[in-house]
């Protein structure tokens, strides 16, 4: 099913939770709504589910206006953060509940519920009560219950946040597998960027009720539209440096250093954002930044160097072979893919091309 949001807004008293949201989701896609807490992502999901009634704008399922329709008539399935399994029913009764509400004949309902239980691999647990299940099993039951009615749209409200790290990875792969197998349009709310990046076809990044960017995950990482997007994605977070553009160079604040660029812009304050993994030790490059190594952390196959340029502290992933030392002054090259410049005035990405020939790109 296609989902379309047209200038959808939600106000609670005088707080605007979601502001003029436009979104279009194609059939069979998995879209994550990502953002820090309080950004309006769950509100958006609840509006799509029909639990909240939007104060403004329109919501369409397949060109059909859904605004006034109660959740029970929307043909959706939903998995809640704490699963909301009915504690007085067994796993089987929980999965069959939506069918029972639809008055599906019992034999057919039973078969269908068992089929769903097998799909999420809990076929052996049907007689248990939710309190006798582990977190992952409860999660699977909740997914089976959401799927049993063959919904046209599947909604997840931070479904993995109550699981431990290992199970979280397992379950998100599981969700992706089931979603692909059934080719069901899915919306997945999360505050975990890694989760969103790894399972989504498209990511909708929100902040303070406003859409920041809507694009495939890799594109969002490589081509952030504004500073918020750049800084929200990536761990450790992207490095930020203050600078000023003039004479085809960005001059770094409080230093003598500058970065060569191609641009029409002149005399503008800007923020340079560089991914930690975009740095490398420059050898014979036509451009590099001079930095002082303050501290070195071993992080498995890489090392992370904490360096200073002027007053700014930056993190750089470097190779172990580079053999840098603490307190050493090093020359850092920058890969062009991890280099972004944003306007200081409105934090939008500025049209700037790097003008150097690094030997690594």
């Amino acid at each position, binding site marked *: 099913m296609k989902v379309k949001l047209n200038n959808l807004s939600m106000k609670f008293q005088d707080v605007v939770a979601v502001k003029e949201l436009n979104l279009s989701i194609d059939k069979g896609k998995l879209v994550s709504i990502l953002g820090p807490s309080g950004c309006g992502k769950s509100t958006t999901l609840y509006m799509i*589910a029909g639990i909240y009634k939007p104060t403004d704008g329109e919501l369409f399922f397949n060109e059909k206006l859904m605004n006034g329709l109660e959740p*029970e008539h929307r043909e959706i399935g*939903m998995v809640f953060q704490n699963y909301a399994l*009915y504690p*007085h029913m067994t796993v089987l009764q929980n999965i069959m509940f939506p069918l029972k509400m639809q008055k599906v004949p019992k034999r057919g309902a039973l078969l269908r519920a068992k089929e769903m239980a097998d799909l999420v691999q809990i076929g052996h647990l049907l007689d248990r*009560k939710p309190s006798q299940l582990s977190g992952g099993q409860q999660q699977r039951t909740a997914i089976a219950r959401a799927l049993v*009615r063959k919904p046209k749209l599947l909604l997840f409200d931070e479904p993995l946040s109550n699981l431990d790290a290992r199970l979280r990875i397992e379950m998100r792969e599981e969700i992706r597998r089931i979603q692909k197998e059934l080719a069901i349009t899915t919306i997945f709310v999360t505050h975990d960027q890694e989760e969103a990046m790894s399972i989504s076809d498209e990511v909708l990044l929100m902040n303070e009720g406003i859409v920041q960017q809507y694009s495939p995950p890799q594109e969002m990482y490589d081509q952030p539209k504004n500073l918020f997007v750049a800084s929200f994605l990536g761990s450790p977070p992207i490095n930020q440096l203050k600078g000023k553009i003039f004479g085809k160079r960005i001059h770094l604040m409080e230093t003598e250093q500058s970065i060569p660029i191609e641009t029409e812009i002149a005399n503008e304050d800007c923020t340079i954002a560089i991914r930690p993994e975009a740095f490398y030790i420059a050898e014979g490059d036509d451009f590099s930044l001079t930095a002082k190594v303050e501290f070195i952390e071993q992080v498995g196959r890489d090392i992370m160097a904490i360096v200073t340029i002027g007053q700014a502290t930056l993190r750089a992933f470097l190779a172990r072979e580079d053999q840098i030392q603490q307190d050493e002054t090093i020359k850092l090259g920058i890969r062009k893919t991890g280099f972004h410049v944003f306007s200081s005035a409105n934090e939008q990405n500025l049209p700037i091309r790097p003008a150097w020939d690094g030997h690594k790109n």
Partner: protein
Amino acid sequence: MGRPTLKSTFTAFLYLLPALLIITVFTIYPIIKSLLISFYNDYDFFQDIVYERGIDSYIYLWNDPNFHLALKNTFIFVIGVVPCSIILSLLIAILLNTNIKLRALFRTVYFIPFVTSVVAVSIVWRWIFHTEYGVLNYFLGLFGVDPIAWLTDPKWAMPSLIILSIWKGLGYNIIIFLAGLQNINDQYYLAAKIDGASAIKRFFFITVPLLSPTTFFVSVVSIIGSFKVFDEIYALFGGQPGPASSALTVVYYIFEKFYGEWNFGVASAAAYCLFIIIFILTLIQLYIGKRKVTY
């Protein structure tokens, strides 16, 4: 907290002593003593001499038509009050649990009868039930119903008593149900909505089962409370067990035997009969509760 030592046990015992003393003197001792008294056949109350022990009192109860009437009335009363009271208070609790205006005011209003003295309440109800001047007959008259002799007709005395008792017990049950309702996570209702359950189905498939521990507690407490009914009768019928003993209950029977006839053996035996009945019923409830209240 370490292991209990002799000293710490003694200290704790000292703290417990005052309450323990009062409970022993006024509760535990009478319980045991009345069991013993129920087996006195011949007893001199003034000199505390027992001439003969036996089960005469129980045989007397077995043959006493008045006791049978009291038992019958008590069962009618319990069956009349408990289910009605539970259903009504559950419905009111659900209404009060929704977002209505003046919710706090309503909660207080419903709770007032419970904290008001039975005697005061009964006097008001004697007026409401009055055959000629009562407000109840006045309203019924508006619908063309002839005046009913609520308190003086043996046929209507028990229904009057039941109405009063339901009304009086509502407040307490409502408060307990409200607490129970607030313990049900909203997420279950959201999930049920998404699963396609209408409001009525949500009530029967979510609210009722998830409220069952509360309902169980309320029913146990109300059944025990209803079996012990006395003050309402005494006050409502002016010191009589209703016209022609139509509102004679077991506790009223015990009261009459004890204070009216000074027949302590029979009174104690009747008290123990009531105890056994309540005990068995509670066991049955616990058994049912264990099977039905499981999650």
